[in-house]
């Protein structure tokens, strides 16, 4: 990619403002392009870049950090085009003008992708203004000036001025009509290692999270959810709860009870002392009932076609051989380390919301409905988030805080005991998958049919996954079964299981055909690349690229003595990731020794953050597949805390080696894409080690002793 000149026809993104205390103040708008108003007149910046006469470069925004590192990554993009000295950069949380500062949805790996161009243009525009100011002062052509490390120089005359010295003058110049963005080969900041902005505060315990919120007059609230999925609240006897010292009030609203107290311990004791009658759910839910219902739906139902290429039924009828297998995955809670919590202060004429919410716009809308107040009277403040994994895209806990504050007439910080999160639903959906593959007389894969059953409307499937495009007859169907159990997106939604299932079944087919796993994938990818069947949403060459790279890294086919390899590749959230896992199984005990990871996520922003995200995704992917289970028995969640809901721990974590492919594509996120292939690579390695094909998650529900 060469240096590109961008016409700032999207002028709506940028605006010069007057900075308090002088200097240059550039307002811009980030987030999804569609949130930018069409008319510049109505344009309101939601972030500001300020260069002070002192030379400090400040980025002001309200940007929730959930652990993906965007709070550091975004300023790096601006800083690259601005040619700033990273040591001068200060990142500040904006004041509480939520209307101006809010991003629409602070979710997922999309954040970087949609914002990259905007941030680059903002940085380049500020740089152009500083250069113009210097050129004017020196009476030279701007083109003859250079910038580096927060200084403008004029090489022919040897003059130089710092950004701080130029800031005042630059702030008075008109915005440039067009700016030139750097060529990626000239990047000096992007792709390097920069430490997370908040790390110093985290390691000293200073960093505040939503759960740490305390304001004058505030009460702590302990929430009780129905103990069985789908139950309704009957009557509440709070006599004993109110006797607990420190308990102030007990309030309830449909299907929730909240004990309010002067400290969390009293709130928890009061919660335990409640005597509540719950009305039975219409169906007493259980994993056993759902498994059966899923199987029945797949056997009898017609299902909704989510993808249809060619004619699968006819192809399977005419096939020489049909290979089939059934896979099953359990419910999974999110278990973010910071328990669910939210602060609300509901007053007669205003509401303030503060806490770990990822969808502040939805929170405000909901609060407006609950209180009858217009949205303009509702302010939101996002705290740093102690993990979300999808859970905090929901707003149910915002409702809890608003209801409790409204009913109690005080500010409240509600918290769900860990058990309440496990009991309370909003899980990754359990699902059943029935695969059939048709092989013709020449040993070619000619048909692929996946029938899935789950409890969500669109199904727990990704109908576009590879080998889509490589098989002439390809169909994916969803069968919906109704359930009272609530669901929520779980890190890398649907991909988190479908990668494992698709990549496992693909290997089953490969083995049946006597094909080597890597060679089989490459052969299918060549087909998708040269002559795809139907539309494909991924680039086969890039998927091939990461596969070939990881095979090299891991010396595929030559594992260290006593270890067995498994391979997987997956495309999700616009990124391509392939992994090789090395495992051994001794007397049925799995050990994952090493995972090699090759990722093509376009331009890497912060190498340190990217590596951390890959490691986290791989560890999470393996941990969830190995141990993650949430059986529903007699209507209730069987695992209620970390003693039975197992998370992966340090002694179970593999060594990880990550490589990012150098490509000229714009950045695509990494918070999610590294996760899906990990469990697939391990499952395939388990098969190589034991001959046991994992068809039911978690891994540890399988007998690996063979």
């Amino acid at each position: 990619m060469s240096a590109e000149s961008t016409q700032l026809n999207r002028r709506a993104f940028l605006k010069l403002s007057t900075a308090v205390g002088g200097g240059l103040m550039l307002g811009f708008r980030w987030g999804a392009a569609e949130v930018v108003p069409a008319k510049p007149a109505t344009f309101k910046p939601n972030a500001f870049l300020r260069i002070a006469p002192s030379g400090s470069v400040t980025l002001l925004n309200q940007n929730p950090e959930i652990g993906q590192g965007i709070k550091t990554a975004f300023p790096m993009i601006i800083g690259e085009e601005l040619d700033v000295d990273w040591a001068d950069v200060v990142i500040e949380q904006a004041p509480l003008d939520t209307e101006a500062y809010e991003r629409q949805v602070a979710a997922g790996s999309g954040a970087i992708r949609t914002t990259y161009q905007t941030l680059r243009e903002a940085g380049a525009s500020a740089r152009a203004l500083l250069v113009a100011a210097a050129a004017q002062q020196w009476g030279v052509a701007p083109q003859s000036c250079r910038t580096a490390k927060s200084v403008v120089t004029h090489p022919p005359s040897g003059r130089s001025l710092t950004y701080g010295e130029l800031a005042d003058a630059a702030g008075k110049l008109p915005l440039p009509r067009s700016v030139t963005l750097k060529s990626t080969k000239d990047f000096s900041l992007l792709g390097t290692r920069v430490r997370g902005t908040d790390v110093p505060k985290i390691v000293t315990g200073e960093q505040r999270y939503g759960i740490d919120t305390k304001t004058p007059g505030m009460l702590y609230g302990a929430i009780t959810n129905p103990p069985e999925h789908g139950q309704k609240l009957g009557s509440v006897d709070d006599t004993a709860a109110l006797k607990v010292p420190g308990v102030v009030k007990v309030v309830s609203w449909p299907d929730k009870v909240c004990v309010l107290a002067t400290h969390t311990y009293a709130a928890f004791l009061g919660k335990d002392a409640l005597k509540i009658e719950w009305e039975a759910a219409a169906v007493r839910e259980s994993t056993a009932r759902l498994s059966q219902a899923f199987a029945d739906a797949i056997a009898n139902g017609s299902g909704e076609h989510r993808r249809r290429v060619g004619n699968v039924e006819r192809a399977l009828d005419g096939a020489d051989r049909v290979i089939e297998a059934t896979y099953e995955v359990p419910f999974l809670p999110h278990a973010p380390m910071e328990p669910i919590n939210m602060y609300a202060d509901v007053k007669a004429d205003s509401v303030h919301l503060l806490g770990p919410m990822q969808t502040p716009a939805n929170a405000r809308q909901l609060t407006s409905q609950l209180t009858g107040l217009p949205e303009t009277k509702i302010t939101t403040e996002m705290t740093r988030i102690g993990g979300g994994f999808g859970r905090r895209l929901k707003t149910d806990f915002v409702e809890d805080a608003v209801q409790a504050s409204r009913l109690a007439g005080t500010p409240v910080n509600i918290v769900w005991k860990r058990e309440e999160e496990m009991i309370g639903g909003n899980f990754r959906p359990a699902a059943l998958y029935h695969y059939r593959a048709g092989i013709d007389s020449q040993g070619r894969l000619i048909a692929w049919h996946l029938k899935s059953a789950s409890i969500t409307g669109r199904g727990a499937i990704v109908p576009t996954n590879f080998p889509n495009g490589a098989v002439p007859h390809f169909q994916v169907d969803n069968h919906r079964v109704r359930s009272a159990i609530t669901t929520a997106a779980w890190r890398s939604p649907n991909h988190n299981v479908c990668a494992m299932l698709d990549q496992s079944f693909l290997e089953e087919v490969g083995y049946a055909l006597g094909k080597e796993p890597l060679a089989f994938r490459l052969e299918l990818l060549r087909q998708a690349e040269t002559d795809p069947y139907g539309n494909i949403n991924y680039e086969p060459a890039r998927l091939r690229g990461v596969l070939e790279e990881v095979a090299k890294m891991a010396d595929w086919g030559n594992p260290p003595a006593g270890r067995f390899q498994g391979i997987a590749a997956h495309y999700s959230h616009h990124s391509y990731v392939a992994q090789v896992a090395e495992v051994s199984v001794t007397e049925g005990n799995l050990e994952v020794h090493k995972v090699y990871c090759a990722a093509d996520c376009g331009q890497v922003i912060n190498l340190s953050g990217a590596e951390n995200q890959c490691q986290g995704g791989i560890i999470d992917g393996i941990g969830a597949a190995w141990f993650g289970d949430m059986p529903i028995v007699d209507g209730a969640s069987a695992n209620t805390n970390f003693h039975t809901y197992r998370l992966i721990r340090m002694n179970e974590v593999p060594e990880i080696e990550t490589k990012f492919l150098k490509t000229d594509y714009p950045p695509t996120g990494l918070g999610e894409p590294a996760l899906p292939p990990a469990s697939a690579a391990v499952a395939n390695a388990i098969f190589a080690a034991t001959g046991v094909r994992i068809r039911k998650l978690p891994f540890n529900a399988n007998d690996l002793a063979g």
Partner: protein
Amino acid sequence: MAQFKLIVNGETRTVEADPNMPLLWVLRDLLGLTGTKYGCGMSQCGTCTVHLNSAPIRTCMFPVSAAANQSITTIEGLSPTGDHPLQVTWREMDVPQCGYCQGGQIMSAAALLQSNPEPTDEDIDAAMTGNICRCGTYLRIKAAIKLAAQRGAAQ
């Protein structure tokens, strides 16, 4: 309700509390020291780890009465300047993701290095398995502990 004297990060503090009240809530809600975190309330995750007379304890199940008149160190008090060798390596290696578990991780690691300044990989695993990191920063945690131990040994 009873009065308890606690020596928290070198300062004597007096609290009025139910003797069974876990130290976690005393620190967080009564003393405003929110660096010690609630994660599970049943000694399963380690986010609530502090030192009691330099030994690591899980405060979520540790009654305040059992800590009376004793010396407690929280993450806020681990080093007055924030320069404990582990805090330094934690920053250098850019360990945290969401960061919520990290105070507890550092407190567990600090207790380990105090009793065992040159831990093996197995020692580190054994001392740290009680601390969950949901974001999966385990490899960097381990590397940061090893680096701090190496520097300690070199001195």
